[in-house]
């Protein structure tokens, strides 16, 4: 298992993404950050903290559970149902989806369906800490912490203090290496 991001790398990446979000949206008005469980949720909260520190305005965050919108229901053991907690309306807002790793794109496809069931945002953007490639759908991120070229058999693990006790991004070699 090889560490590819230290805690300080993650902090710097999130700070840069926050600046890009502000630049891309000309401020943080009408912004809503929605974290995708599990690790997208604390990452969204951290991003909101950085945005508030820069702009002096609190940005609403929420949790977007996508388990019920997946296209692989029936191919895996039944997932647990999480709770979507979005206390503000997404109607006509700019929704930034936040996730730890962008891989096949299928989670984000589910997330797009889940968001549009909550309302009609003005636009939806995507921020991820890691883009590891191997997309199976025409989906791309607007904000990327680190592009990480990987082989299919490799495994990318993101650890965050809030759920795992420490911060770090790791690559594991899979079968055949």
């Amino acid at each position, binding site marked *: 298992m090889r560490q590819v991001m230290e805690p300080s790398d993650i902090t710097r990446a999130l700070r840069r993404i926050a600046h890009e979000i502000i630049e891309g949206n000309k401020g943080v008005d009408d912004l809503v950050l929605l974290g995708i469980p599990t690790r997208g949720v604390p990452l969204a909260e951290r991003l909101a903290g950085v945005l508030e520190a820069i702009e002096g305005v609190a940005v609403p965050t929420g949790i977007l*559970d996508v*388990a*019920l*919108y*997946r296209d692989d*229901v*029936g*191919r*895996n*053991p*039944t*997932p*647990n*149902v*999480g*709770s*979507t*907690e979005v206390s503000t309306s997404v109607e006509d807002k700019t929704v930034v989806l936040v996730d730890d790793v962008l891989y096949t794109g299928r989670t984000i496809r589910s997330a797009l*369906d889940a968001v549009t*069931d*909550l*309302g009609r945002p003005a636009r939806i953007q995507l921020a991820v800490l890691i883009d590891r490639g191997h997309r199976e759908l025409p989906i791309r991120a607007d904000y990327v912490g680190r592009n990480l070229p990987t082989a299919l058999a490799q495994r990318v693990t993101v650890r965050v203090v809030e759920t795992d006790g420490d911060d770090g991004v790791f690559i594991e070699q899979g079968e055949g290496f």
Partner: protein
Amino acid sequence: MQHLLSTEQMGRSEAESLLDDADGFLEVLDRPIPKVPALRGRTVATLFFEPSTRTRMSFERAAKALSADTLSFSPSGSSVSKGESLKDTVLTVQAMGADLAVVRHKAVGAPWRVAEWAQMRVVNGGDGAHQHPTQALLDALTIRRSLGGLDGLRIGIIGDIRYSRVARSNCFLFPTLGADVTLIAPPTLLPVDTEGWPVRHSSDLDAEIGSLDVVYLLRVQTERGGASVFPSLSEYVRRYGLTQRRFGMLKDEAVVLHPGPMNRGVEVSDVVADDPRCLVLDQVANGVAVRMAVLFRLLGGTSG
């Protein structure tokens, strides 16, 4: 989980994870669009060989909120009145493409037989006076959401226990989740043999009522012979009815549950039935979420 037939063998973690999922589905049901695509393309058949409106509607609502299709069947005017056997009915519905059958039948054990015959998943929607597991789960969810959890709670199940599948399901699930259950009924309305049930019994409601956190009232089931085993309804009300006087003896935070439909003026007084601490309508709402959790658990996984 292959089928949901009984609460008797259900473990605590399995029950709690279904209740956790149900909490998530309550949030779905509260959305502007209370529907998710999770079970698109799956078909749920409700095979109710006994009359039922609310349980069937609750299952159908749950299936539709998950985007499953529903097939419904009632014995009157169907092939059953022409003499078709249970097995043939079940295999016919399966051949039409049902993935899961909710079975209600007056014969104890019928859902188990259906599970043996069919490749479909089976949910017991009530078999005779035996089991009604989704009712017990929705009751547990209602108590958990209202009082925070079942651990250490004192729950009194009152009334017609002998003829009640609801009581039999709750007698096992509530203790599994940490509650202390007392059956309170005239001896003639207790089952003949409660050996091995994790519960106590009493026939004196007035002596017990002040210590209860949950009062679970059962309907006096006149259609199953309930009325013939005590001298008169007014005597039943006097000794076991939740009258306003007894309601006043309850702890301040205690809540009242009833599986419905209520006989107002018999097991529960009219005024108590309308009190906010009587959670009957919460039970109905929670029932849809619990049934979504069960359907999703059985149909949302591999080979579902």
